[in-house]
């Protein structure tokens, strides 16, 4: 038994060729394109020293841009959780004319360049646009406000929740719902107590993907945001502004803060998911 286990663990020479070539190329390419350039960012921020870094980090404009980026990303991800689950539900469960076209269209934000989405949304939601003028009559201003940023972020991160929840919904055993119904649960109870909890892990994954994408988004936001400092200036834009002023240190500080805060947020979501799995026994 022990000998067998040992034999399994010792790497057996595979007869498939190309190990060194493929792995060597992969690591070299990844190193040149991703790791060394990211190393330059680490090096630059390490060169700043704590004091200078905190001075740049605690700058009022930096803080307000970071706050805006994370709050609007959170809002957009939450909107997409609600409508993403609804959309996945409708696409999986209901039949209606044009369902397959709607299903295909969900991926549009992945395919449409963000700058195109940005100018289209701006025109649509501007005070004289198709939607903006209607909202304007109700006293709601969208373009050049944080609300406009949320609109753009909802667009770019729309597919994430739908596409993570959809395959899980397709796998749900209908018999479970029938069992719940035969035990006297109302349809509403079955949905809220049986179906939605089993969608929770996938929804959380979709939420974190949407959130991460939204925090870093630039192209679709800068047109509709109006980019007023302290009001509607997002953190990625501040990096671009600092670079244009040749303030590389300040740009680096903002970038490091975005990366660290996003990392901590995603870590928290992962821990929450692991906790949920242990505590409630949900599948991943």
């Amino acid at each position: 038994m022990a000998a067998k286990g040992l034999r399994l663990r010792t790497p057996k020479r595979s007869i498939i060729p190309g190990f060194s070539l493929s792995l060597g190329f992969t690591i070299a390419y990844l190193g040149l394109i991703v790791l060394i350039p990211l190393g330059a960012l680490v090096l630059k921020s390490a060169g700043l020293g704590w004091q200078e870094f905190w001075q740049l980090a605690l700058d009022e404009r930096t803080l307000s841009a970071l706050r805006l980026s994370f709050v609007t990303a959170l809002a957009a991800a939450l909107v997409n959780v609600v409508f993403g689950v609804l959309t996945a539900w409708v696409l999986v469960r209901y039949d209606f004319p044009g369902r397959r076209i709607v299903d295909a269209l969900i991926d549009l934000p992945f395919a449409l360049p963000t700058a195109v989405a940005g100018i289209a949304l701006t025109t649509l939601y501007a005070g004289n646009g198709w939607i903006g003028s209607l909202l304007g009559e109700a006293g709601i201003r969208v373009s050049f406000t944080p609300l406009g940023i949320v609109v753009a972020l909802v667009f770019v991160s729309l597919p994430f929740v739908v596409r993570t929840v959809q395959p899980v919904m397709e796998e749900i055993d209908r018999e479970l719902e029938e069992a719940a119904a035969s035990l006297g649960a109302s349809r509403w109870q079955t949905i809220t107590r049986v179906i939605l909890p089993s969608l929770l892990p996938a929804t959380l994954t979709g939420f974190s993907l949407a959130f991460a994408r939204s925090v870093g988004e630039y192209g679709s936001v800068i047109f509709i945001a109006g980019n007023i400092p302290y009001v509607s200036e997002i953190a990625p834009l501040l990096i671009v502004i600092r670079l244009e002023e040749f303030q590389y240190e300040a740009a680096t500080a903002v970038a490091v803060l975005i990366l660290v805060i996003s990392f901590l947020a995603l870590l928290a979501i992962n821990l929450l998911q692991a906790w949920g799995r242990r505590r409630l026994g949900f599948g991943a």
Partner: protein
Amino acid sequence: MALEASRRVATEAPTVRWAAIALMGAFLLLFLLMPLIGVFVEAFRRGVPAYLDAIRDPEAIAAIRLTVTVALISVPLNVVFGVAAAWAITKFDFPGKSLLTTLIDLPFSISPVIAGLVYVLLYGAGSLLGPWLRLHGIEVIFAVPGIVLATIFVTLPFVARELIPLMEAQGKTEEIAALSLGASGWQTFWKVTLPNIRWALLYGVLLCNARAMGEFGAVSVVSGHIRGQTNTTPLYVEILYNEYNFAAAFAVASILALLALVTLAAKTLLEWRYGHGLARRNGH
């Protein structure tokens, strides 16, 4: 009869169903369909001759040519990388495999603006390599090489992440059979592996190309916006828009929107016809 009854308890009342479909429809109309339609309406607002003038402008043609050139360099490189990485990861066992897989996905969780920034910090004027590059007359930042590098960075995971799950599921028995029958390594790859992964490869290429041609944030940081020289199509759209030349901006944007629609159509066709030859997906 019994089946019918059980189906009835496991679904919602028709009114609820249609309300859910309508709510999803309204959401998708406001956030997906109207921006898409808006692009084409705005593009033709000044009529067909103005549209044709806008897309036949020498600067527009230069921008489109640059976009195609950048995609023609970066997509094939990422195809070679994706195939090599998938070969190494799915055909062999080695320590650090899951770390490597995580690193390949890294560009998706980094803001495109930060992707541009790291190249500026590595190759820009104030960087370590900057003086050496200037001495040898090599321009990376504010030139085409920087645009290509930034595009490769943001599109790096697309092909690899389509291939890895599929090749993982396919295993290596077919390759081992071919090799033990006397085929060479390259013969095995071209005649056994490649036919097995061709649809997934095409799928990855489609997504990679759409992103490469549409990338805005990363390219915007490294390009320097030199008209006719380092302006890609999305950057040219931004310039036209900021000059209040809306009709021309949307005319050029409509070409990118058309590319997105063609990508979506080809992608959907692949999913319908060759779904079994693609990896199961969630997210993107």
